[in-house]
């Protein structure tokens, strides 16, 4: 029986603030899972800490709400031990790019086949609005006593530099577009990253829904002027087509340059995609030929309560 969107929803009460951008992301994620027909008990949503961390409780698949900054570590461990799972990790920008930045970079180097979605709102919401890693230098959201003294992390740039093989940005109020991006990300063979711009209506009074919609710009020009535009609409080609250094470098460089656009024009869509880089599982198969069929979670370790592993060769070699 085909699963419906409703099947991917739990009845857990959602306590996000009214108007929170997170709703758009969780809806898009449920829609994407439904559209792909992902088997619920073969999918795991891992989440970090903070408002976005509650996401896993709203989705009716396996859900693992982990620790602040550590979501990628849990998610990779599960995917490595059972490569047949569909794994999506989610978390805030403070979670992934502040406390968890080391894991972000290391995950890029591995290229495990899974998806990581950052709910990017520039603030630490659940602790009452401190500056997060993506807030721009000098900006003062309403809870900050003084303007932000740190330069911002560029999530897209950091992802391409770290080795993520699918790097995209979505906008939480364009749910359909976001749903399509999530499907592309999940279908990508390798580690995919989605930076989702997500207004925090309670603590970020700068990057608001109206700001993204360009309401302030519209006042000047007297016409609708959204800051957000889609890369596919400007024929941006993010794909690495051939396995040549020059091609890879060009696509990396153009992704980085694109990621620096901000202010009046903010691109969303796919910035970079490379399916030529080997996935981590392929690197493991090179060492352990039957790794995928006989993964750690699948292995038979005992017979009638006794170990079935035979180490007699090793033991004999140690005998004196």
């Amino acid at each position, binding site marked *: 029986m085909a699963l419906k969107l409703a099947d991917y929803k739990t009845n857990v009460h959602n306590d996000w603030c009214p108007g929170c951008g997170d709703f758009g992301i969780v809806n898009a994620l449920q829609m994407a899972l439904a559209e792909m027909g992902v088997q619920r008990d073969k999918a795991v949503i891992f989440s970090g800490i903070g408002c976005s961390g509650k996401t896993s409780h709203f989705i009716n698949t*396996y859900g693992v709400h982990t620790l602040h900054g550590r979501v990628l570590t*849990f998610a990779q461990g599960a995917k490595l031990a059972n490569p047949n799972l569909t794994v999506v990790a989610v978390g805030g920008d403070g979670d992934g790019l502040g406390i968890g930045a080391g894991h972000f970079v290391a995950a890029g180097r591995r290229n495990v086949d899974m998806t990581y979605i950052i709910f990017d709102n520039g603030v630490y919401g659940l602790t009452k609005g401190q500056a997060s890693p993506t807030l721009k230098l000098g900006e003062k959201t309403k809870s900050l006593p003084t303007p932000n003294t740190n330069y911002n992390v560029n999530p897209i740039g950091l992802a391409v530099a770290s080795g993520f093989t699918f790097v995209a940005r979505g906008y939480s109020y364009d749910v359909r577009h976001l749903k399509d991006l999530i499907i592309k990300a999940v279908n990508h063979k390798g580690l995919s990253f989605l930076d989702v711009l997500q207004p925090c209506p309670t603590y970020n009074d700068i990057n608001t829904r109206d700001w993204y919609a360009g309401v302030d710009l519209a006042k000047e020009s007297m016409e609708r002027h959204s800051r957000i535009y889609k890369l596919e609409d400007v024929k941006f080609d993010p794909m690495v087509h051939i396995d040549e250094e020059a091609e890879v470098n060009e696509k990396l460089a153009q992704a980085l340059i694109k990621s620096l656009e901000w202010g009046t024009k903010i691109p969303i869509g796919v910035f970079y995609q490379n399916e030529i880089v080997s996935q981590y599982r392929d690197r493991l198969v090179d060492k352990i030929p039957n790794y995928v069929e*006989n993964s750690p*979670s699948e292995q038979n370790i005992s017979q009638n*309560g006794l170990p079935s592993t035979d180490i007699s060769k090793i033991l004999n070699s140690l005998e004196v």
Partner: protein
Amino acid sequence: MPIDFSWLIGGPQGSGVESGANVFAKVCAEMGYQVFGKREFYSNIKGEHSYFTVRVSDKKIHSNVNDVTLMVAFDAETIFRHFDEISTNGGIIYDSDLENIASDDVHTLDEYFKERLHKFLESKNKPFTISGVLEIAKENGSSLFPVSFKGLLADLADKTANPKLRGLVRMYNVLGVSLSLGLIKMTPDSLLKSIESIFSKKPLIAEINKQAATFAYDYSINNFHNFPYALKGTTKESNTILAQGHFGTSLGKMVCGCRFQSYYPITPASDESVYLESNEILEVQNDRPGSTLVIQTEDEISAIGMLIGSALTGARSSTSTSGPGFALMTEALGWAGRNEVPLVITLYQRSGPSTGLPTRHGQDDLLFAINAGHGDFPKIVYASGDIEESFYDTGRCFNYADIYQIPVIHMMDKFLSSSVVTCKKFEPKKITINRGKLLTHVDGTYKRFHLTDDGISPRSKLGLDGGIFWNTGDESDEYGHITEDPTVRINMMDKRMSRLDMIVNQVPHDEQIATFGISDYTIISWGSTKGPIIDAIDLLKKEGFEIGFLQIKLIHPFPTDYVKSLLKDVKIIIDVEANHSAQLGKVFKQNVLRDIDYYVVKYTGRGMTSTEIYESLKKILENKANHREVLSHGA
């Protein structure tokens, strides 16, 4: 005459001290002897002083002793640091080219050591040179066996018409071992066999080393005389292996079905992970090959995060770390406790605090392990006392983790990790595998944290049909969804914490405590002090003194009633531990509500010898001991 022979080889780090010692240990083991070897080294790659002591006996031994019977030294520092450890009738084989070297010429001799050395030499009216200290050794009754190592190589080069051998200092270790084996009249066959097996992939190098070994061996036979010790071999015990420190836990993990190990490099724990990866493909009876997936992570936080993720898929999973790494793991440890995730952390302790003495021994982390993590959650802290038992204990730890669905911290240490010992061949069939309430299929509605009568819920795993669950670091309801309800909180806390009593009541007594006799004077201890304690009480027994010993293995939850019952008639309790604050003693007092009469502690970073434990026990028996005896042997 029974054989009890202690051999020491020293040299700068990187000069092959360890491989030399391993050859010596292997040869002795193959000649039927029991071997107990231990390596000491600085936190350094090349140049600092490293030494290896190999004790050899024709009966079972469990420790090192203070006295060295034969030392072989091809550098000056080894002689300066160890000349006073040589027993009467013992010997020193040394490079005669070193004789004129003064202590100030040796830049790796630190000022603290030199100050003590110079004071001592002044009191003996000797020059601060190798000749000076060797004179003292000679006056103490040691025999000196000088030989120019450079000269040996030059003669060998001439003899084999291979000028490249001249100045091949890399071979000094082989020369040292061969000279030693010649001196103790051990047949050279197994020496040559050992060299062949070490260099099995490099036949040319094997050949050169064999030539050098034979040459040095013959030199020793022909030129060194009047050494009273001969080790010509003894009856070999069947089913004996020569085990490196981490073999117990690594092979234990393979056998008990640990299929995922994540780790971050740290001394002295990484050897285990590297060994697991070197043997990642596993033979499985009547099945396709299995494998251990070993993942080197970006830090220890990632190591435990990955390990938890893996454990949630149902794979037996673990990590191996030491104090600083374990410190980073504690937040996630609490998450695992909260979510009832079975996992094993093999904690190879070393000396702290902070970086402490990073390559030295210490049992500093017992209280830390027991209290690791914020908040209240159940865990097991289980300690192994030697390499052989660590094999079987590894199997137990994974069973405890699965049965009680909690994290298990398996305490090991640097003393164990840098030992090499002969022991009975591990018997995999003595390990049982009990996965507890791990489900293979689910019927009906599933609740991961279902409140059952026995306090343990059936456990699903990620990917199991119909077994969907949620985890969270927050308090949760039976499904695993966040709750802050006070009643649910009470139920869930009680459910999790009820495991502690369950463990004490259900784990068999002989797994909780190993009892080596109970007497008016009885020792309590834990971990690697086991070996030297057993040897020390054995020595005292021969003198007519009975001393009991409880090796406490299950330390958290503490088996209070069982300990009380064992100690009820004991008059004097002696706590022996390799840490400053006698951490087991604190746990003991807190639970048993009884005072400890004597403490024997050591925190120099060097493991205890049976000699020093023997001496302090003797003082205790003679009523001459301090309430707290502090040991300090070892360079």
